[in-house]
């Protein structure tokens, strides 16, 4: 195989060279990274750089994609280590803090002295007319926020026992609590719940996409590689599925999941439903790539050399369209995350005691309570929207980088 690809690469880099010259002539801003625009030595570097190296260079220039990637890494880390990041148990409730607003975090005290992050003592009183709780800060008592502090015991991933949390108040402080995003109507810490929600909501998108990918690669691959009647049948099936509007279809399918299923079963049920629709998009991308690659010289060369079909697919075709697959994979994750959120919001997806962003949104459904506690809506909504944006940016960057030889 190695005799075909380097040549292919070289031709393509010449094409790239040419097009960059053209763009100089056209007066358009030169879209070549510093490494590529340098002197002769730099040029040499481009010639010898591998496909993935070129992609990385191209991706790196996409600033928003980098930002998206960083946001996602942080979110996924929070989701993965939610027991550690969350200061409280998501089910632990503070009776005195029903619908308490976010706790202000201070760094400088009343005299302007730098104290590190701390909170003031909060007193609760009640408004005589509206009967709403009012929280006032008592500026005389200061509770510093500690990092790696001892708190409620937990089992990380159900395996390792620990009591250490990323941050929190000292364990001996009673009846005071730090709520980064406020508390819900039962006095549970919304930030902790968001952390736990991240685990379900973010992973459901990933697993769903990988299921779709598996189905999509197999069926799209068969469809694109063999063509003919198999192709027609698979394409028709895809058409039928895509004809039914997605959200009503998801609703109908998830209504079929028994409501009394345990969380884990429900989780996989929802994932499968999401990917039942998702694979069609994947299959189209894969098929399209197969169709165009089938005509390529290096595939023909491999076939003439006597490679088996399987080897041609795995060794020659998949690597050359993998980058496209990764890009469209990334772009289809937000849809699946939103699918889970929407279904859970409707009460058809995950249900309490499961904690996902959709479940949290559903708890924020009551408009009247929202007027008093908007963080119940904005906490989960901002998390979801940030994730969607981050994935869109990342996906855009990846899609541009997927073809490093283009313009």
């Amino acid at each position, binding site marked *: 195989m190695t005799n075909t690809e380097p040549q292919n690469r070289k031709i393509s880099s010449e094409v790239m060279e040419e097009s960059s010259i053209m763009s100089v002539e056209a007066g358009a801003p030169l879209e070549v990274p510093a490494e590529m625009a340098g002197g002769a030595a730099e040029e040499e570097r481009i010639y010898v750089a591998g496909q993935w190296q070129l992609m990385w260079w191209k991706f790196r220039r996409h600033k928003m994609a980098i930002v998206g990637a960083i946001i996602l890494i942080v979110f996924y880390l929070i989701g993965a280590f939610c027991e550690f990041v969350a200061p409280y148990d998501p089910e632990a409730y503070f009776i005195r803090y029903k619908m308490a607003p976010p706790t202000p975090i201070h760094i400088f005290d009343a005299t302007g002295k730098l104290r590190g992050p701390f909170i003031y003592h909060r007193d609760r009183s009640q408004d005589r007319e509206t009967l709403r709780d009012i929280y006032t800060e008592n500026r005389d008592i200061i509770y510093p926020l500690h990092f790696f502090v001892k708190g409620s015991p937990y089992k990380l991933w159900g395996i390792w026992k620990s009591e250490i949390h990323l941050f929190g108040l000292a364990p001996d402080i009673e009846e005071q609590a730090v709520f980064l995003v406020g508390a819900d109507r039962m006095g549970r810490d919304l930030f902790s719940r968001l952390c736990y929600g991240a685990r379900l909501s973010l992973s459901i998108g990933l697993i769903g996409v990988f299921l779709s990918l598996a189905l999509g690669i197999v069926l799209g691959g068969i469809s694109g590689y063999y063509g003919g009647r198999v192709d027609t049948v698979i394409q028709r099936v895809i*058409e*039928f599925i*895509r*004809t*039914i*509007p*997605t*959200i*009503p*279809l998801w*609703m*109908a*399918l998830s*209504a*079929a999941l*028994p409501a009394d299923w345990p969380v884990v079963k429900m989780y996989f049920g929802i994932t499968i439903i999401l990917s039942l629709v998702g694979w069609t998009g994947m299959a189209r991308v894969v098929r399209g790539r197969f169709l165009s690659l089938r005509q390529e010289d290096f595939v023909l060369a491999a076939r003439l050399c006597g490679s088996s079909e399987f080897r041609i697919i795995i060794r020659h075709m998949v690597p050359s369209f993998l980058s496209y697959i990764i890009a469209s994979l990334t772009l289809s994750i*937000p849809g699946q995350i*939103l699918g889970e*959120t*929407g279904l859970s*919001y*409707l*009460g*058809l997806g995950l249900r309490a005691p499961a904690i996902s962003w959709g479940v949290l*949104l559903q708890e*924020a459904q009551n*408009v*009247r309570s*929202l*007027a008093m506690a*908007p963080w119940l*809506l904005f906490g989960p*909504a901002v998390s*979801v*929207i940030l994730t*969607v*944006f981050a994935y*869109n940016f990342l996906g855009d960057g990846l899609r541009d980088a997927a073809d490093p030889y283009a313009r």
Partner: protein
Amino acid sequence: MLGYILRRIAMMIPTLIVISMLSFVIIQLPPGDYLTSYAATLRATGDAVDEAELASLRQRYGLGEPIYVQYYKWMSGIILHGDWGQSMEWRKPVKELIWERMALTVFLSLIAICVSWFVAIPVGVFSATHQYSIPDYLFSALSFIGAGTPGFMLAMVVMWVAMRQFGLNVGGLFSEEYILAPWSWAKFVDMLKHLWIPVVVIALESTAGSIRTTRANVLDELNKPYVETARAKGLRERQLVWKYPVRVAMNPFFSTVGWTLASLISGQTLVAVVLSLQTNGPMMLRALRSQDMYLAGSFLFLLSVLTVIGTLVSDVLLAWVDPRIRMES
């Protein structure tokens, strides 16, 4: 042209048959049926369950029969008598419940499409002709945000803002006194007053997408030699842009109108639940929950039919603007 349209319609028929089967099977997926869950609810609340009544209802709805018999009865009812079956929960024929809701769904989606094009095309063309200007960056940023914001969350935020700032409950398409009233001019005017919030929410996503498509397409066209030629001949810039590149750039709109409609209807379902609009969303959700299968099935089927029709419309439009397509087949 007529022959082409007829051929396309003929091709729709097998699709429709398969879709009707799919919808029926999907609706039958939950274990048990409406009557079992109905009886369970009665028992749970301590009411007496009249077995004879249940049996007669079972008979009437054809529940106990094998699924293909049920499907056959449902389908033949629709085709021969326009009878979509009985809604078990509402104790009414489905057709009495469904048409007004579907009409509003279509109406809302069409208005949303019109609004999104009405906004997106001028903005997209402006962005393309003023590439890298401040308004272009502004519009691009806005369209990126719009494309990423899910409609139903936007709807929730809009509800919150209206509640908080104006003390209004913006849900629904009608004022209270008109919800059950028969259609009249006053009811229509009342609906128009409520319409703008759902339309803006529903149209936002597709508007944002359309702005990006228009901008990219027009930009592609603007660099072509024929534009340069026209300019060299002294054609006024405004006339030149709108007469040629924009027209070519519109092609993808025609080819995707079917999918746009489908995604609008799909997204609209969720928004409708949040804003409690009198479209398919809330009623379908309820029917699905209570396993009111003929009602839910009819919704699922009709929504899919809308998509099929949308695809047909976009094919016809495409053939109309592009002679190569209609000649080919």
